Each structure stands twice: as C-alpha cells, then as structure tokens.
C-alpha cells in the first residue's frame, strides 16, 4: 500500500513541478511581448505531452480566432441573428445560455411554456 501511495504522490508532485502556487505574469506592452517560456516543450509527463499536442494543433490551423470560423459566421447570419452577425441575439440567448442553482426550476417551466419554440417537448 505504502508503495502505491508514494508513487501516486509523485505524479501530483510532478504535476506541481515545485513551482509556486501562484504564477504571476504581467504584460505591460500588450500581448506581443513573449515572456512565458514554453512550459510544455520539455515536458516528459503525459499531461504536458497532451497539452503540447493541442498547442501544436492550434499552430497548424489556418484560422486561430473563433469569430473567424466561417461556419460560426454562417450560423449567426442564417439562424441566430438572421442577416447580421450579432452575438447574444435573442435566439442565441434562448438556445445557448442557461441558469444555475435555485433558478433552474422556474427556468425549466419557462422553456416548457407553449410558444417557446416550434419543437415538441416529448423527450423532456
């Protein structure tokens, strides 16, 4: 038992890597200053390797900003805010936003009220 606990503890420590709990980086001259070192390049544990995998995928993508995705532009122009690209439109609010905690029961009633949308609620 002791051995397992020791080794699993290692994983956690490896993850924390002896760095301070709070890493602070202040960028004064905008985002163009490259201050952070690549924390993943030398990573030999699987968490760092998976992270490096995602960052290298990001770098290879033709588009790297969400609002430039042509299918995002299309869903706003055709469906969420017809004719324009308006984030937080009424339809976007209805389909893409939610409520939490004690506000949920009333929210469910609201969603089930007739006229909320043309679909049925058979599965709900």
């Amino acid at each position: 038992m002791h051995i397992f606990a020791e080794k699993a503890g290692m994983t956690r420590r490896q993850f924390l890597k002896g760095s301070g709990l709070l890493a602070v980086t202040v960028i004064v001259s905008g985002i163009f200053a490259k201050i952070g070192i690549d924390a993943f390049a030398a990573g030999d544990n699987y968490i760092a390797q998976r992270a490096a995998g995602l960052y290298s995928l990001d770098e290879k993508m033709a588009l790297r900003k969400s609002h430039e995705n042509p299918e995002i532009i299309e869903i706003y122009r055709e469906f969420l805010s017809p004719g324009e690209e308006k984030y937080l439109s009424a339809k976007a609010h209805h389909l893409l936003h939610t409520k939490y905690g004690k506000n949920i029961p009333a929210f469910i009633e609201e969603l089930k009220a007739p006229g909320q949308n043309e679909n049925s609620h058979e599965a709900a």
Partner: protein
Amino acid sequence: MSTAVLNNGVIHVSDQCKACDHCTSICPTGAIQGRLGEKHHIEIRKCINCGQCLINCPFGAIDDFSMVNERIRKALDNPHQFVVVQEAPAVRVALGEEFGLAPGTNVKNKMYAALRKLGFDKVYDTEFAADLTITEEGTELIHRVFNALGVPGFEHAGPLPQFTSCCPAWVKYAEDNYPQILPHISTAKSPQQMFGAVSKTYLAEKLSLDPGTIYSVSVMPCTAKKYECDRPEFIASGYKDVDAVMTTRELAQMIKTAGIDFVNLPDERADQFIGSSTGAATIFGVTGGVMEAALRTAYEVLSGEALGKVDFQAVRGLDPVREAVVEVPVKALGGKTLPVSVCIVTGTRYVAPIIEDVLADRSNYHFIEVMNCPGGCINGGGQPIRRDTY
C-alpha cells in the same frame, strides 16, 4: 429521461476497493468516505462527478456509469434515428494512447473515420461549439466590463469578475458550496450543451430532418459531462439537447470491439455546417485555453484592431493558479487602454480562496477560468488511464 445519474451520481466505488485510502487525497470535495483498511464509498451529495478518483485509483476499483449499451448502441441500431456525434478537443490528443501511440499524438482525422465506421450518420466536432462559446461568452464578458465602466446601455449585464462555465464539475461545486457566486458564472452553456441545442434546431433545418429523429451523442474526456447531459434544464431545442455521452476510454473500447484497425484508418474530415473549427477551439482542452481563446476574440472586438500574434504565452502553463494582465486598447473608450486582469485555476481544490476574495469585494480580476482537472480536460476523468505513472 433517466434520472439515474442525477440521483446516484456518475462515479462509484466497486467491490474491488483495496481500502488504500489514496482516493481521499485526490478528491477535491471530500466526497470519498472510508478509513484506511475499510471499503470506501462516495457521498453523492458532495461528489462533482469529475472522475479524478477513478483515474488515480491504483487498483482500478472505481467505475463510471456507462451509457454505451443502454443508449448509444440502441440508437445506432435504430434505423429511425439519425445519430450525430461531437468530440471534445482533449479526446484527439489522448485516444491514440489506447492504440499504442504517444500521448499528445493528434488522431483527429482517424477519430472521424472510426466514428463513421461505428455507424454514426454524421460526424461533427465539439470544437465548432467551442468557437460558438467564445463568441457568446466573450461578448458577455465585454458587456459586463462595459457595465462596470458605466457605459450606457449595458446596465443589465452581470457582475465582474466573470467565471467560465464550461466545466460541469466546477459548476456543481459552485452550486453546492457557493450559491452567492453563481451570478458571476457566465450564462453561456458549455460547448457540449451548445452543440446539442444547435444539432436539434439549426442542423435539423439545414439537413431537412425532423429534430425528433436526431440522436445527439458526444465523446468527452470527462465523466462529469455524463451528469451535465442529463441535467433537466438542457431542453432548449425542445428535446433533450444531448442524448448520451461516452468517454475517450469508452470510444476506444467500441473501436476495439468492432475490430477496427485504428492506426491504419485513412484520414477523414468532419461533416459540414457544425464541424469546422479554429485553433482557439482546439486549446479549450488545456488549462488556460478558454482564457486564451476568449482573449483572442475580445482583444479584436474591443480594440477594433487585428491581432498580429495570437499566442498569449502568459496564460499558459501547468501551475494550479496563474494570473496575467493584458493591456487592451478599447475603441469605445476612445482608444484608452484597459488592463484586463485574468486568473486561471486548474484544480477545484484551489478555487475557494479566489471565490472568497470575490465575495468580499477584494478581487481585481475581470475573468477567471476554472477547470476541475489538473492540467485541464486533457487530464479529465474520462481519459485513458496512465498506469505507467504509478
């Protein structure tokens, strides 16, 4: 709709428990009960379904509730159901591990091919919905900032700082322990749930399908996503928005059971309309990624200028709590520079002091990202288990 998950939770300790007590040190909420030498059990009320205990149990004694046989296979076998699937960013850099590839290997295009072979009618991507999350959640943040600055017309926006909302384990933790903080959590649904709502409305229109015949499945690095999909409020489409969730491990198992030679599959692409994505969506799977994706869009919207370099190195890293300040010139304020102060938390156990500061009005942050799992969703409770690390 099944209420099993809501009532009993997703994660259970099996009879294989060797009572080593390791999981109690892993659990971020103190939900695991039991003394050394005693079979452990999970207190459902406190559990946030994150599965960190599961991937860290040295004896494989913890299981997650499976929707594969009862829901997903039945839908795939039903000729009247049009089964669509989405996959989270973190899945594509870990699925390969189950087939002998190194961690971090991108298998996105083979994953699409495998899902088609498994019988899914259309294969899309959660990353599309991650991009949609950014346009909605990023705009919500800008509105909250304008409200705080007293810009007229934004009085109805919520308070600052804004917390991210895409991690259902973090959301449940906040609901269970800090109800006063909930107005600070973005109202934007998680990418999984946005995808579900869109798949039964917009996609149904695009494909001229009766939305009632669409069955929406997701592949997630996460066990809490199973709980999230069964939450009763996710019915905005008029149906259950996401019908079932499987983990990265369960997808690997389905691929193996079907006898698919995964590593030799041809590269395929996701289907049209809700399948394309940007690099901003890809990094949702790693801690700091949602923050960086939001900053890329918020910077351009607020400044009216195109970003030259999109990498925000300052928010990257694996430390459990990180903060950064990004200077953003704001067009609406005549080009005045706004120092946007952000914080990234990876590991729910570290979030309480940050919440306490917000509630005591001591916090200067504008935006706080919280991911339950150490490192982000790449290390989620549904990911391949790395026994080699013990």
